[in-house]
């Protein structure tokens, strides 16, 4: 009796260890394959792959300066990745992070102007609140269209990106333009006093803390609360969840709003810490790279943090590669695209290595549940 119990416990822990080992090893293998493929591509384009990777490593993590630059880029990526990852737990593929970021940044800039002479802390809170609400409304609306009308959320969220950027450009170059911004139309500057400062001893701004806190909170929410359990149940089988009495529609809208709020906050951090006003620098593609981060991390909030640093590092090294190797700056986009394709293809191998692990460790146990529906559907 006791022996069986201890055996089953150890087999369960071994199975979990196998799954964890696979969850780490498979993405690493996919990254290695992507690097080889990209190296071949670079060689065909007439550059030396090893020299390129050396420069990339130097540009991403080689010096304290480049590490800080990578971390600064990782901050918005964590938040925009959550915009895809949180709804993904319910089986939605929402890719509207770019639009929510842009509108969040705009709302933050407007809030800073409206609050004007208030103390900096109040202005910061007002900016963050405005950005959270703007992002939540934008992506929440997209999720509501899915829940209430059955509108394909992937296409509608991508369309909303274009609409958001159009509205943003109209307002920044029209009604909200600061007449003093001549070359690059911008909103009125938020002011030195209201700028979001840097972390002590670093040039990395506080947005990184926002990102880390948001990821941890999202992890607790998804994995450790009844809301998260209900959300994962919807992701597994929406109809079963409905029959079990779960408010499926409300869960979907809430997940969209939460994800959108995260992306909106990324916009606020970019405005308050980097640009000092809302202008066209805001739509720099963080929303799209965030999609890649979310899929690389398999929508796991804790895994998003290291993956965001990696992808942030890749994009930070783009400038150095362009200068020293002479490759076009789009080289970074090509690498990201290859990485994305390979990581999705690697899904097909998932579960096979866990089986090997069990066979190797000599323990029989019932077949594991298949992967969540968002990957298989």
């Amino acid at each position, binding site marked *: 009796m006791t022996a069986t119990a201890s055996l089953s416990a150890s087999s369960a822990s071994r199975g979990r260890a196998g799954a964890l080992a696979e969850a780490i090893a498979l993405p690493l293998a996919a990254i290695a394959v992507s690097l080889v493929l990209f190296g071949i591509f670079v060689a065909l384009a007439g550059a030396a792959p090893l020299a390129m990777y050396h420069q990339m490593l130097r540009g991403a993590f080689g010096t304290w300066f480049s590490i800080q630059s990578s971390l600064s880029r990782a901050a918005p990526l964590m938040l925009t990745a959550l915009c895809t990852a949180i709804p993904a737990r319910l089986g939605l593929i929402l890719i509207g992070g770019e639009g929510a970021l842009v509108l969040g940044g705009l709302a933050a800039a407007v809030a800073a102007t409206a609050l004007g002479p208030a103390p900096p802390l109040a202005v910061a809170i007002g900016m963050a609140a405005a950005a959270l609400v703007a992002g939540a409304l934008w992506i929440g609306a997209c999720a509501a269209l899915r829940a209430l009308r059955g509108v394909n959320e992937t296409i509608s969220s991508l369309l909303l990106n274009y609409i958001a950027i159009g509205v943003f450009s109209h307002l920044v170059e029209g009604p909200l333009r600061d007449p003093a911004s001549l070359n690059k139309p911008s909103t009125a500057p938020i002011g030195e006093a209201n700028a979001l400062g840097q972390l002590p001893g670093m040039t990395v701004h506080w947005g990184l803390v926002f990102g880390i806190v948001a990821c941890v909170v999202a992890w607790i929410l998804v994995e450790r609360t009844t809301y998260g359990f209900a959300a994962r149940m919807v992701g597994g089988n929406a109809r079963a969840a409905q029959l079990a009495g779960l408010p499926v529609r409300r869960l979907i809208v809430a997940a969209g709003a939460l994800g959108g709020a995260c992306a909106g906050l990324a916009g606020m951090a970019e405005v308050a810490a980097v640009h000092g006003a809302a202008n066209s620098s805001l739509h720099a593609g963080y929303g799209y790279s965030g999609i890649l981060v979310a899929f690389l991390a398999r929508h796991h909030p804790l895994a998003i943090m290291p993956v965001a640093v990696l992808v942030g590092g890749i994009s930070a090294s783009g400038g150095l590669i362009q200068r020293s190797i002479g490759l076009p700056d789009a080289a970074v986009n090509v690498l990201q695209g290859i990485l994305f*394709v390979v990581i999705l293809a690697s*899904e097909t191998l998932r579960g096979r290595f866990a089986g090997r692990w069990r066979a190797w460790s000599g323990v029989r146990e019932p077949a594991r549940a298949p992967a969540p529906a968002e990957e298989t559907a």
Partner: protein
Amino acid sequence: MTAGLGAWGVPVAVLGGALRVSTPFLFVSLGECLTERAGRINLGLEGTLVMGAMAGYATSVLTGSPYLGVLAAGGVGVAFGALHGWLCSLPRVNDVAVGIALMLLGVGLAFFLGKPFIQPVAPRLPTIALGRWSDVPQIRSALEVHALFVAGVILAVALGWLLRRTRWGMMIRVVGESAAAARAIGYDVERVRLLATMAGGFLAGVGGCFLSLGYPGSWNEGLSSGQGLMAVALVIFSRWDPLRCLLASLLFGGAGALGPALQAVGITSGYYLFSTAPYVLTLVIMIATSSARRTLPGQPGELAGAR
């Protein structure tokens, strides 16, 4: 320029724009229609479109022949379609996610490889002057139609006939409606889907080279503004019917031409807002035609959204 027509310049310009701007919509939506009828969604056609635009332009610059450019664009489209079709045939790989990945990869690759071709001028595709009867220059220029548009119209009719009246068409429809039934008949489901995705990629690539070799007729990184994506939405609106894809493409072309047309007559204040018209229109149409009951009339049963 519009002095002769006054305010009438706007509808004429919108008409002319509809005939020009609609062509990429038409090709991409026909391609996507074919792929979706076989039961798979390819969201990556935006990437294929941009790659096609780049490959067509580059080939035209290097060889001096825009027709070879069209072929090259179609060939690149086939390659991307094959990659999508192969990846999706692997077990547990999500076709929507692969589409997003290929969209980002295609756009990145096109910008990377197309960098040297931004400056050179390529020979462009010829146009057919349908407006020769008119003395009004605006009408003449509005009816300056590209050969590819005519080809697209013929293709829409041909594709409708192919799907409805031929053995191949039936095979594609069976595979799209029920993979189990298709297997029972003895069709190779994965192969039909792979070929349908490759053919869809070909059309999307050709649609892309219209942007660089037809209208607007140059290659740069801001060339496509989501036409490939809107075309995917347009297929839903067209109820997976090639002939309705033609009508919807004309409608979208007109909406896309609205911003520049208003700018030409001096209404410039809301330029960015008018330029979002096609996206807003797409969204409104999607909201109006979707249903909470999920399955739409005409929707292939095997599509991811239908299950």
